[in-house]
């Protein structure tokens, strides 16, 4: 589904990631951990072609990212739900419209049927008509998760999706992602939250990847 082969990424003269090789198989559940600034967000951006590697090869859905033109990248992204750390929205549109944005740009209307259920699940149904600037950090994060999963994408990439949430809401979102994973979706979550990882491992066979010294290693047994 997503594969890295000896990938490096440099920025501003310094190498942020080096010799990264990993493979996210269909239906797998991975966590990505590491200290702040280690390159977790960068690795996620490489996964949906917002950044291109400076060396090595990244394959998305069996296509090498460098060979993709802009339209093909757009089509690939429709199969990937992304939860950004800074939760970007269209501030002039209500929350409900923002959540259905992936359906709008791909010309599908079926997502509207799931909208109410999804908003209820993330506890935002009463705020459906609110504008993003009116939402708190936690509400924005929940909305971002809802937007990432509304099209039932093949892959969900989430960058600190529970950073601003209380434990109860974090577990609710985790349950949502676990359910998607059980449906065969591939999940990759970058997080510092070890409790979240432990909670997930009780429900799914999640693997933990750790970024240290610019490289990605498999961790997990000690968590």
């Amino acid at each position, binding site marked *: 589904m997503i594969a890295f082969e000896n990938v490096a990424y440099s920025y501003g003269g310094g190498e942020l990631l080096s010799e990264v090789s990993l493979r996210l198989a269909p239906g797998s559940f991975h966590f990505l951990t590491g200290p702040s600034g280690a390159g977790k967000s960068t690795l996620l951006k490489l996964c949906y072609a*917002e950044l291109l590697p400076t060396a090595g090869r990244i394959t998305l859905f069996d296509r090498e990212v460098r060979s993709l033109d802009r339209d093909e990248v*757009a*089509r690939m*992204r429709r199969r990937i739900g992304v939860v*950004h750390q800074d939760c*970007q929205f*269209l*501030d002039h549109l209500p929350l409900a*419209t923002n959540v259905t*944005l992936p359906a709008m740009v791909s010309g599908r209307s079926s997502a509207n049927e799931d909208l109410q259920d999804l908003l209820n699940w993330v506890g935002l149904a009463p705020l459906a008509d609110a504008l993003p600037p009116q939402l708190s950090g936690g509400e924005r994060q929940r909305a971002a998760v809802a937007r990432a999963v509304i099209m039932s994408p093949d892959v969900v990439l989430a960058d600190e999706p529970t950073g601003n949430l209380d434990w109860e809401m974090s577990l609710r979102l985790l349950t949502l992602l676990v359910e998607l994973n059980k449906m065969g979706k591939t999940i990759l979550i970058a997080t510092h939250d070890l409790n979240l990882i432990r909670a997930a491992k009780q429900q799914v066979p999640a693997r933990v990847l750790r970024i240290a010294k610019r490289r990605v290693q498999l961790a997990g047994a000690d968590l």
Partner: protein
Amino acid sequence: MKILALTQFLRGDKQADRVVPPSGHTAWLTSFTAATMTFLAVFALALSLAAGRLAERWGDALARSATIRISAPAGQMDAQTRAVLDVLAITPGVERARAMDDAEQRALLEPWFGPNLPLDALPIPRLVEVTEDDTGYDAEGLRQRLAAEAPGAVLDDHTRWRKPLAVAAGRLRMLGITSILLIGASMAAMITLAANAALAANAQVIRVLRLVGARDAYIARAFVRRFTLRALAGSAIGAVAGMIGVALLPSADVAGGFLTGLGFQGAGWLLPFLIPPAAALVAFFATRFAAFRKLKELT
């Protein structure tokens, strides 16, 4: 663009239109630019059409006419006039010829010397108006015969001043057409700038749309449609205002001059209605070009 795509573009996509936030500044700028440019284009069009009519009128009036001016002592004037008319009567290519009477000559001179011109007291030359037929006459041959029969007669076949007039009218027409083209180019440039500003101001919107899988064509369409419709609306207002301005110009019948004839005639009044669709097309291509270029920059 295929017909289906054009129909879809005109019909629009309400949801897609909403993804671009309303931007008052660029909206106003685009509509205002389209309105003022169209207003100017209407006048340029009126100038071009009037110059065309003028060229035609001068051409028709001058091409087939000539004047013979007879300057002779008072005692010989009638004899030389008769001699000139006799020569003209047998000259091939001359359809008719007639000597202008005193009243006609007074009317010709009235604009310069006033109504009470003492024609008898002044050494005014006699004028003979010549109209040629379709075949035309041999001007050089006629000049030689006139020199032999009426030494005071000089043929003026209008060529000397017909040419500069025709050239001037042609250039005026070209000036009008060039002005319309320059106005269109200026409008394209200004709308491109406004579209660039709108795209730059909405970089965050573009980032979000890309994140959720929007293609460049989808993003561009939202901007292009908005700018095209603004240009169409602004241009329609400018066209109506320009036509009102042209209609308020003094009538050519009243004053009779070129400047007062600077209006539309008959079906010509329909021509300004072509400007708003043309402005919309200019806006469409200008914004489309700007949008795709900007979207490439915002990788």
